[in-house]
């Protein structure tokens, strides 16, 4: 589904990703871990097409097509979803209205008829029940006045409604207490399916107790320096990130 080869990306003049390669197949859950500043969030933003990040080398192939050429909205329409680390507030626009706008754009792109407000509200209610989301949240303005936990749950709720092929969770666990973490994880686990891949970006292992990954990758200085199964996360939790630092540093230590 997703094939990243030797990816280089910059923000401003600073190179953050320095030759990152990663392969993700449908149905898989990949965890991207790493110390602060290793490039985890940059990877998430680059995949979503944030204009502040420039791809300076390498390729990203998604569903057999070059992603770099596509606008953020086209990526979204083709099934890439980013759950933001810091969800943005849009005063005065209800969650339901916002989601319907996105949902219908995606349907239009697929050549499906758009849903009217009535039908869409029905869909929202069903999804909110499944995810135990309070219905009042649907009519509140997008993220405005939401607590940190509500914002993150709202991201997962949007994910559930928009049903992407590739879901990228950017530090979804940050700022969550244990109950909110459990609720968000449960939501994600319900959405796991053989057609959908997840890229879970996180600093801490604790999220991976709830969302159990198929693969764990450690990012350091813009490159993946170690990959393994879920047990790698536990090892990182025990030993910290130092032992898997970038090859240059690791090589010097050896």
């Amino acid at each position: 589904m997703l094939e990243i080869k030797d990816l280089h990306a910059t923000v401003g003049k600073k190179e953050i990703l320095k030759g990152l390669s990663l392969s993700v197949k449908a149905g898989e859950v990949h965890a991207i871990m790493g110390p602060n500043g290793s490039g985890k969030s940059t990877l998430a933003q680059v995949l979503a097409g944030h204009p502040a990040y420039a791809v300076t080398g390498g390729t990203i192939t998604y569903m057999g097509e070059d992603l770099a050429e596509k606008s953020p909205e086209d990526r979204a329409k083709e099934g890439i979803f980013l759950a933001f680390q810091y969800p943005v507030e849009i005063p005065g626009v209800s969650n339901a209205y916002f989601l319907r706008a996105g949902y219908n754009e995606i349907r239009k792109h697929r050549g499906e008829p758009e849903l009217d407000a009535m039908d869409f509200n029905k869909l929202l209610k069903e999804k909110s029940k499944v995810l135990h989301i309070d219905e009042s949240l649907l009519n509140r303005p997008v993220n405005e006045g939401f607590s940190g936990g509500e914002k993150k749950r709202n991201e997962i709720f949007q994910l559930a409604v928009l049903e992407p092929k590739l879901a990228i969770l950017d530090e979804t666990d940050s700022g969550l207490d244990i109950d909110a973490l459990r609720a968000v994880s449960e939501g994600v686990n319900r959405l796991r399916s053989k057609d959908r891949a997840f890229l879970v970006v996180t600093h801490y292992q604790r999220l991976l107790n709830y969302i159990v990954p198929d693969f764990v990758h450690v990012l350091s200085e813009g490159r993946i320096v170690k990959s393994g199964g879920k047990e790698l996360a536990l090892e990182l939790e025990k030993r910290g990130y130092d032992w898997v630092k970038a090859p240059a540093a690791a090589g010097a230590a050896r």
Partner: protein
Amino acid sequence: MDPVEELATKEYKWGFVTDIESETIPKGLNEDVVRLISSKKNEPSWLTEWRLTAFRQWQKMTEPRWPNVTYPPIDYQDISYYSAPRQAKKAGSMDEIDPELVKTYEKLGIPLEEQKRLSNVAVDAVFDSVSVATTAKDYLEKLGIIFCSFSEAVQKHPELIRKYLGSVVPTNDNFFAALNSAVFSDGSFCWIPKGVKCPMELSTYFRINAADTGQFERTLIVAEEGAQVSYLEGCTAPKRDTNQLHAAVVELVAQESASVKYSTVQNWYPGDKEGKGGIYNFVTKRGKCAGANSKISWTQVETGSAITWKYPSVILQGDNSVGEFYSVAVVNNRQQADTGTKMIHVGKNTRSTIVSKGISAGKGQNTYRGQVKVVKKAAGARNYTQCDSLLIGDRCGAHTFPYIEVQNHTAKVEHEASTSKISEDQIFYCKQRGVSTENAINMIVNGFCKEVFRELPMEFAVEAQKLLGVSLDGSVG
């Protein structure tokens, strides 16, 4: 690409010109022109005198220079003060109206034919200087409601006109009001008798067509004791390279326990991208809550005009009366707006609410100017003002000038203000959910204006939202 970079323009789709034979008097203004206009309208002599008094006052006045707008001096002798489509007299029935005019209004989305008209809305259509048609008149007459062109009202209901004309905005109120009083050509008149609740929206649609003419219409709405009315005004003009002057006066009167709601969707031609052409919209709008427990509410969506200068106001004279002002003002490209309101608290326990939303894009300059005045005897007066500005791009401006004057210590006046900018992150967030930049801006702006839009009558809230989208189209690349 910087999403707040490019400023393109979508075509102003109401910019067409109707090819119709008009009678336009020569340019220039003097007492004879004032008399000519009055005689063309076959007015009683008291009204001719009233106009002349206004003209003499106007001659002694100077154009206000305090608004935060700039424009070259206006040559008042280079304007024609009267233009009417050549049609012997106002059509008795819809079949007699020039088909070109019917077509024009249809193109503007205002069907004049009875069977096609918007359900639940009666329309008075003003073309250049004269009213060409008023729909649903018969139906309203049965309820005792008078809704007709101003000229017709002068002929048929002179006692009402004489009683109320200038009672809220005196002839010498300000430069443009004096000018209007001298040369006003037509407009709408509406009178709701005691205890009657007008069952439909009343609406005037103003269309400027002729070149080099000014439009000076006069609207007078009176709600007698316990009466209720909701009124909407819409306007468009053709695209022309020269500026055209529009100086209207609107007077509202609400007697005891009456309520008047006045909504405007102002969409005069704003000029092109470089600021060439467009309407100078210099308008005086004021309402008087004359009786106790009365209410006047202004809602305006201002997207057009090269320059907007207007302050729909309420004089809260009756005890417990209520004044409201809800405004969305948009400037894009080179547009300038200096708009706001005045709430004058005179009666006891009077309350007013001001919600102003200014949106600036391109090189537009948007100024909110508002006055809240509580006189000595207005015990228990309350005002709440909320004044928000939204900036799109970094070459536009937003300015706020609130004037608060309180002479009674029991009064409570609140003022809240905010300025925000559509952020790149907001746009990216929307795009990541599949929404295009243009629609994202639309959504964000509409969210920003929500408190005002919900005050508009249903039919027009949708129209206003669409209009906003068109006005801001291309403001973000």
